[in-house]
């Protein structure tokens, strides 16, 4: 059974722009699905629809079989969100941020457990008591993942998580994602970074003008020039 299932999803904004034009995709349990596409292809719109931040024009989205439009709260229970530029409560320390989101889920932990998670995320210990407003983007991304882990949702949705990260930071971040997968999480990630997509994805979907124009699984990705394929798909479906 797919953990995320999107069927004939259409989103036309109030200004008439067609952001999604009949999107269909399935993300299997335990896989890392990377949605590739240029700016304006509809990647962020897809993420916004999964969490019901906006309403679709038509079509359905199911998270673990729960309709995200009819029962957004039920669907959100099984999905954690990490945005492009992770924003947390700036005046709080990482521990205070984790404590808040843990309380929100009714799963408050002991301070040592927060420290353990932060350690696992690779955050330096001296940062645990610092306010988040002084954190770099990379540190925020790690903290964002920690919040997602605390939520203990099966699906983790990441919107352009590697943009703006330096190569070392991006590599460490991908390592974190692999760890999440090994812990049984399913990952749906959007990016326009072909290099990172190739490194991490079990399956890649290529978006162009609101449509999924191509899909490739890990074996197909081996030994091919993904960039060339990506440009070809996008050009063909312009």
């Amino acid at each position, binding site marked *: 059974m797919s953990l995320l299932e999107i069927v004939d999803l259409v989103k036309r904004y109030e200004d008439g722009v067609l952001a999604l034009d009949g999107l269909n995709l399935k993300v299997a349990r335990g896989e890392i699905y990377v949605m590739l596409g240029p700016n304006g292809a509809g990647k962020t719109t897809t993420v916004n629809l999964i969490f019901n931040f906006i309403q679709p024009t038509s079509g359905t989205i199911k998270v673990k079989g729960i309709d995200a439009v009819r029962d957004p709260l039920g669907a959100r229970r099984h999905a954690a*969100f990490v945005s492009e530029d992770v924003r947390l409560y700036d005046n709080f320390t990482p521990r*205070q941020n984790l404590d808040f989101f843990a309380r929100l*889920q009714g799963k408050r932990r002991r301070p040592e457990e927060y420290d353990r998670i932060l350690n696992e995320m690779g955050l330096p210990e001296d940062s645990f008591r610092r306010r988040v407003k002084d954190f770099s983007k990379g540190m925020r991304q790690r903290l964002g993942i920690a919040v997602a882990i605390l939520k203990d949702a099966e699906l983790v949705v990441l919107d352009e998580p590697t943009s703006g990260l330096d190569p070392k930071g991006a590599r460490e971040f991908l390592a974190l994602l692999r760890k999440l997968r090994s812990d049984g999480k399913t990952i749906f990630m959007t990016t326009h970074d072909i290099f990172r997509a190739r490194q991490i994805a079990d399956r890649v979907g290529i978006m162009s003008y609101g449509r999924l124009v191509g899909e490739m699984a890990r074996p197909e990705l081996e030994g091919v020039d993904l960039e060339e394929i990506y440009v070809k798909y996008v050009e063909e479906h312009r």
Partner: protein
Amino acid sequence: MLWAIVHKEIQSNVISSRFLILSSLCVGLFVITAFTIFQEMELNYREYRSNLIGHREAMAREPSLISLAAISGVKVDRRPEPLGFFARGIEAARSRIYRVTSYDVTPIGGSDLERNPFVSISGPLDFLYLFQVVVSLLALLLASDAISGEKESGTLKLLISHNVPRHTILLGKFFGNYFTLLIPLSISAIAVGAVMSFYSFPFGGDEWKRMAVMLVLSAIYLAAMLEMGLLISSVTKKPSISFLASIVAWVVSVIAIPKIAFHLGAAIAPPPSVAALQNRMRAITNEADVKALTEIRKYIEERGQPPPKEWLEELSRKVMEENNAKKAKLQQEFDNRLARTFRVSSMLARLSPSSSYTFAMQEMARTGFNDDIRFRRAVSEFKEKFAEYMEMRMKGISSNIEDNMPQLGKKLDLTGMPTFSYRESRFGDAVGHITLDVLVLLTFNVIFFLAAYMAFLRYDVR
């Protein structure tokens, strides 16, 4: 879930420099106000007590019954209301001393305005003012960026991505900010209590009950202002816009509506003129004098001799009765017109929660319009009793002024003279009077919260 948000709101408010500054301001203002107002109240009580003694002594020194009945009269002292420190109300502008003669009641001064004319510039200082103006602004500003602030900082999207219903977020924001507001207010209450302990005011069980209701009213009012802030925050996208909109909303609801309503109300239902009332009262007295003289002249013309004493007494009684009836009718008309102006103005003013809060607080502090009418009515009733007593006492006394010349060293015998007593409004009656305003305040709470919820449901969290 709810308490997680409440806890987070309190935590993030308390560590912010904004909260520290506003709280210090709040506590500072409460303490300064407490010192000022308790000092003023003590002065008022001292003056009241010395006036009571002074007026009693002056009455005993009166040279004759006629001068007491017609010229000096009895002085009625209005006791300062012990809860006046919370809501000065109409009391600040009213005379504290009334002269009651057999013919009329005249306010002769002692109001706050007379003692300190600058009060008319700034308005009276009381805790109602602090709640209505300062703390309400604090509440509004605290809540004004509750949603828009989270949107701008980017945390709203993450918060919504968790399975938290929007009404829970809104309620959490409400209670979190409300409890935050209670922190400086609790510190202020302790500080005010400490200042108050240096003074002693006549506080009985009734006052404590009223005080409790006033605190509840303040709590409801602040909740309404906080919800107004939440509503503004739910319809704006940027905290800077929320801030500006809050200032505008505050000015409109706290200053503009209550002020304009009373002027507009007076234009729709003009209040009676006090000067015109006094002129008409004087005219009635003159008419009575003319009528009495005409009757006497007629008697002399018809019978060729001056009327006997009994006939004169009967005429005097009849003329005074008519005189009093006309004056009472005039006073009643005056009160009715004044009440109508107040009714129209207060209905318009109730478009703002601030006005309902003020009316209810003044009613509870016994410094509102109803208590003022009640007191003046009590003085009028006393005047009737005083006039009756004087008439009875002066029966058989020569009307020749020479017979009434002061008798040095001899005190007037005022045995059986009625004394002024005023039964203040009962707690139950006051609660009945504030029902409308409490309902208005509760309605504002419901409307603001529901409107904020509806707006938040449609809020673009991206």
